[in-house]
């Protein structure tokens, strides 16, 4: 009686362990083997807006930071990075400024309601062949406390959030398919 009970316990433990091992190595559950997009962030195009160089740089750097934080992409590459040529499943992020209202930190501190810095950009995620995957208009403002450059940080966070909430198409499993594209 005792021996059969022990055998059944051992059997049950074996089944549980087997299930755990199966769950771990099943193809659907392992995210590291699933194909993932990489993204290359291009420099910010100021468009017709009278945007200062420091704002363009701040948006670009904040975008790279925020996209890295989301961990949605396998690699976040910079504009001009030569490694991008060898990356399969690459998306390109283009940012074009549509509207920029320069604000004033002093005015914000004095009036509370005035002096907001406002930024509106068009964010496009494209495939290397030019096919647009995501096209959104995103805002970034600083209304109350903070320096004017904080608007760029808010904007980058909103862009990263928008991209994360958008369902991207499945990247191709074979690198060959991507590398064959121009």
């Amino acid at each position, binding site marked *: 009686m005792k021996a059969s009970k022990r055998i059944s316990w051992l059997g049950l433990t074996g089944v549980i362990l087997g299930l755990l091992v199966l769950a771990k190595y099943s193809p659907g559950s392992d995210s590291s083997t699933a194909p993932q997009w990489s993204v290359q962030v291009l*420099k910010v195009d100021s468009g017709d807006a*009278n*945007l*200062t*160089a*420091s704002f*363009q*740089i*701040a948006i*670009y*750097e*904040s975008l790279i930071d925020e996209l890295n934080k989301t961990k949605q992409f396998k690699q976040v*590459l*910079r*504009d*001009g*990075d*030569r*490694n991008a040529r060898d990356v399969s499943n690459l998306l390109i992020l283009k940012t074009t400024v549509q509207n920029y209202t*320069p*604000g*004033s*930190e*002093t*005015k914000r*501190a*004095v*009036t*509370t309601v005035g002096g907001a810095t406002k930024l509106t950009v068009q964010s496009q995620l494209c495939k290397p062949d030019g096919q647009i995957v995501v096209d959104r208009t995103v805002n970034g403002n600083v209304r109350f*406390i903070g*320096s*004017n*450059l904080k608007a760029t940080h808010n904007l980058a966070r909103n862009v990263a959030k928008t991209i994360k909430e958008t369902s991207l198409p499945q990247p191709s499993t074979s690198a060959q398919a991507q590398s064959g594209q121009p």
Partner: protein
Amino acid sequence: MKHTHIAQDHTTAYALTGRPAVVLLSLLIWLSVTALAQNAGQANTSTAPFSIRATHLLGFESAPDNASGTLSIQENALQFQKDGKPAVQVKIASVQDVFLGEESRQVGGLPMTLGKTAAPFGGGRVVSLFAHKKYDTVSLEYVDANGGAHGAIFQLNKGQGEILKNELISRGAHVSHRESESTKECTTEVADESK
């Protein structure tokens, strides 16, 4: 006897006329040596270490954002060192563009903001009118070893931005024509702020 005297006179005359020539020659040599030394000194000053206090706002290699420290030029590299932390640096030759700007910021940080909020009868707003300071900002564009574009922004005391920019240019940093536009843009922004 007379002959000898005349000869002696000639020697004295030669000695008298020759000495200024020697003095002149020595003076010329000394002057040229001094000039050479000055040139060498000038050459040294262009590679002499340059160092100023700055706040790193963002983007410069692995330096933390909004960190105060020392921005210096060591030989051919621009280096930023936060107090008590190891320095990070970028080769000046990799700098693709330098932009100058101006920014007006509130002073005192969070304690001052809280104090102004707590002040009765809107007194904090009056303080805000005067509690701001103008700074220079220097924005750099540079490339890494893979050709990837980077941007960095530093905040400096008023008047120091131009000095840093000139120093970078003299040591081989590239500057595009956009520079003058950016200055114009910044002036417009400052004008807007002062409205």
